[in-house]
């Protein structure tokens, strides 16, 4: 195979066409999503402070009008770019090795790193269901506008709703486990000396995020919260 050799800088391929550029976009959008996922988790934990507290929080968010829509827009654009570029990269990677190995050891490589393309789309599918369930109320599950507390409790008492949620947030944890560190590396913020620390932080954020989200269906299923809801 012969390829022309790039000899001048203006012959170079555009930023969004080279893997490193695409990855930078994935990294920045991924960081936006991690920021959202962590903030959302912290917000949700207010459910442990009682019905008034979490419902007031929902009210607050809804009353912020244009701000809420701006945030939604940013998230939507981030998700869109994240998905477009990861899928492009994944397709390109399949072309990069047309003949597979008969035997291949995946040396040290993290399970999480190799399954980003599985955890990602599963999370996306879940997010759609999740929005229909708790934001728009169109999932065919019990729903009262702005009564977040009751909606969550009634939803999670249905075992398969809880199960789907728990699987999905675990996948978010797995995705972030590799994603946070990977994203820092992609943006060039890595060095042999602090890599173990960065990896540990990344694993911890993934784990804590998953645990934070998991605590809610577990609390509902064990009756820790939602006692007064029928």
């Amino acid at each position, binding site marked *: 195979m012969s390829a022309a050799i790039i000899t001048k800088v203006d012959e170079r391929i555009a930023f969004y066409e080279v893997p*490193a550029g695409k990855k930078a976009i994935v990294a920045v959008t991924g960081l936006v999503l991690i920021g959202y996922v962590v903030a959302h988790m912290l917000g949700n934990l207010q459910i442990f402070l009682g019905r008034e507290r979490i419902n007031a929080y929902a009210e607050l968010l809804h009353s912020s009008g244009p701000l809420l829509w701006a945030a939604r827009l940013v998230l939507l654009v981030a998700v869109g770019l994240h998905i477009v570029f990861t899928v492009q990269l994944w397709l390109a990677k399949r072309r990069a090795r047309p003949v597979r190995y008969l035997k291949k050891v995946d040396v040290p490589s993290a399970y999480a790193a190799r399954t980003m393309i599985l955890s990602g789309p599963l999370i996306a599918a879940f997010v759609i269901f999740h929005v229909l369930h708790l934001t728009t109320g169109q999932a065919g599950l019990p729903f009262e506008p702005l009564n977040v507390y009751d909606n969550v409790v009634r939803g999670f008492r249905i075992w398969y709703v809880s199960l789907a949620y728990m699987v999905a947030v675990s996948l978010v944890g797995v995705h972030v486990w590799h994603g946070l560190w990977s994203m820092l590396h992609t943006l060039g913020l890595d060095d042999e000396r602090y890599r173990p620390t960065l990896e540990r932080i990344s694993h911890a954020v993934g784990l804590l995020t998953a645990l934070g989200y998991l605590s809610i269906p577990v609390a509902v299923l064990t009756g820790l919260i939602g006692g007064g809801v029928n």
Partner: protein
Amino acid sequence: MRIILHVWRQKNASEPGRMVRYEVNNVNPHMSFLEMLDVLNEELVQQGEDPIAFDHDCREGICGMCGFMINGRAHGPEPGTTVCQLHMRHFRDGDELWLEPFRARAFPLIRDLVVNRSAFDRLIAAGGYISVNAGSAPDANAIPVPKQAAEKAMDAAACIGCGACVAQCPNASAALFLGAKISHLGLLPQGQPERYQRVLKMVSQAALEGFGHCTNAGECEAVCPKRIKLEVIARMNRDYLVAAVKHLGVKEAVEAGVG
């Protein structure tokens, strides 16, 4: 020792290949892996069969010519070791080993275990050099280099261009090789004038050659016979992003013939 081999045999790129089973008896544990293949090849030639084609040159781990997959690991099971420096004592009597060529679109197969790694040469030609006026050698230490930069640059310069990183990478990415070259040259004062053009050109060339992208999986680092560290990829990404942002300035500099 007795070793059972399953070797990928393929006459050329257009004919289909297949795994062929061989038994090698009387393997001396002090032999290198390639010497073991030499012994097998002699037997094959005596039997009138085609010997197994594999790349090699220095046989002392410095030229980067050798390399294939042994049981799904580039250069075999020993970390930091080329296949020419891998000795049979690391295997056990009766071991069964699968040998496959490095697989990547950018490394088309030539024959058996030999692949064409000219794509690496084109990456270097695109920017992996420092332009200097030829003349008498400069005095030692005429240009001071900070110790830390010198050490990291030396570590990166250890890359022998064998291609194991590409072969092992789940995405057939050349990021470790590229990162090694970009770090090696970009850390030294002599490499500064062309630093940002270099990364733009080499990264673009890699995309043209059909290498995959880096997912920071770290498999390359684990098999690299020269133990090149993943951090070289972060440095390349950093330089690439800076270069992409500053591109206008670089372009003008090129047009003005600077650097």
